[in-house]
């Protein structure tokens, strides 16, 4: 575990050493907060629901951007050979990078703290509902980052990794929208693919439930198991593709 933490520290150092991370974090914060404030002034309710409603699509674009360099850059510059001939297991190395990504996810969500402070300054919002909203967003984000890490390992090109991860993340989100479910079910009524994806695959219904304060541990299990499988898969792919 100490090796993974060492890798995580290096990753965070490298990330915050580059202007790109600051631009990504600032861009995410500005966009998410602006979308919320627009809804907030229209609805005038002391809740963060509009923020959490905007998150899935923002995550589907910003998290692949955060994750795209994780392994693609290492493979392109061949530093992966340096890293994976140090006395650390491949899974530990992948886990270390993933931990660094989770810290970044926390930083992204922390950009909403001024909104939380504003709600509490204005009245007495439902603190538990806000907390479950953040917890649900963190779980879903963690899964998308693990997916982004795997996509980054599949290619040496960061742009390809980004596009691939964004497409898959969008599928995870959009298959939770009723209009998409309707179209997919309509295309092949016997298969009911839309309903199947909505119930078994999409992350959106889970996020929506947690954002409304309805805690169900199936999201935690989905995110934890999914992330573990993706981290493991990333490590196995890297091991199988040493050239």
């Amino acid at each position, binding site marked *: 575990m100490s090796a993974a933490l060492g890798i995580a520290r*290096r990753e965070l*150092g490298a990330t915050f050493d580059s202007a790109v991370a600051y631009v990504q974090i600032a861009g995410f914060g500005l966009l998410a907060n602006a979308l919320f404030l627009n809804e907030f002034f229209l609805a005038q309710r002391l809740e963060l629901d509009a923020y959490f409603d905007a998150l899935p699509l923002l995550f589907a674009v910003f998290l692949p951007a955060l994750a795209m360099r994780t392994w693609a850059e290492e493979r392109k510059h*061949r530093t992966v*050979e*340096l890293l994976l*001939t*140090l*006395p650390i297991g491949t899974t530990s190395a992948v886990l270390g990078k993933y931990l660094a990504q989770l810290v970044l996810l926390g930083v992204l969500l922390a950009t909403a703290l001024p909104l939380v402070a504003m709600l509490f300054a204005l009245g007495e919002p439902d603190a538990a509902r806000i907390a479950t909203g953040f917890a649900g967003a963190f779980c879903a984000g963690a899964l998308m980052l693990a997916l982004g890490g795997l996509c980054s390992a599949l290619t040496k090109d960061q742009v390809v990794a980004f596009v691939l991860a964004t497409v898959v993340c969008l599928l995870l989100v959009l298959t939770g929208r009723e209009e998409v479910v309707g179209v997919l079910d309509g295309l092949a009524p016997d298969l009911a693919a839309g309903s199947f994806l909505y119930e078994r695959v999409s992350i959106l219904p889970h996020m929506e439930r947690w954002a409304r304060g309805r805690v169900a541990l199936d999201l935690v299990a989905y995110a934890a198991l999914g992330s573990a499988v993706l981290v493991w898969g990333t490590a196995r792919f890297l091991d199988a593709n*040493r050239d």
Partner: protein
Amino acid sequence: MIEVEHFTKRYGRDTAVEDFSATIAPGEIVGFLGPNGAGKSTLLKSIATWSDPTSGRIVVDGHDTTKAPLAVRRVLGYLPEHNPLYEAMNVTAFLRFVARTRKIAGARLAERMDWVVRACSLEGVMKKRINQCSKGYRQRIGLAAALIHDPRAILLDEPTHGLDPVQVAAFRDFLFELKEGRAILFSSHVLAEVEAICDRVLVIHKGRLVRDARMDALRDEAREAGTTLEELVLGWVRDTPAAAAATASEVTA
């Protein structure tokens, strides 16, 4: 210390190295000589546990590279070809990262940092980012990272690539200092370099070991054959006139 037994590495239908066996003992500097594409890096990568052999086995300090890769990596210092480094890091942070990954901390970290900085003459660049360092310094940074844990076996893949003649001479002296108690294998396609540094040479051509001999024995052999060492070695790695012409430009004196 390093034992390679019937090592074969294939990539699909292509055979990179076939049935290669050699042993490198502590206290030996062994040159691994061959033209580009002969299979030198392929073998070094497998000794370093980067890739597994297709068949055969490699044992480093008693540890099998496929069964106990982490144990091998702990005793091995490896400078890969092209010397990949984390360009955006400063030199101190990079070496500390490598040291910590190798579980070197506290007083030992300070001691080892001092040693590699002095041994690799990095005093002037420790606060610089790696991408601001010259090619020569970058090679020395890679070497420092490979040596920071005081390894008993050292693999250097084309370590003098990009160094000027003064730096090559300094590197040669440095390897002599390191030699005591350590097995050192370094690859090169420059015969003069191998001749100046090594006790023994392994010549590889088209993935096969064509000669494993001590340098002094090779010099005697060349003298007896009435030829130069360069011609003698070229004779082992050329097969046709066309190939010889191509090889001659790659294996240089």
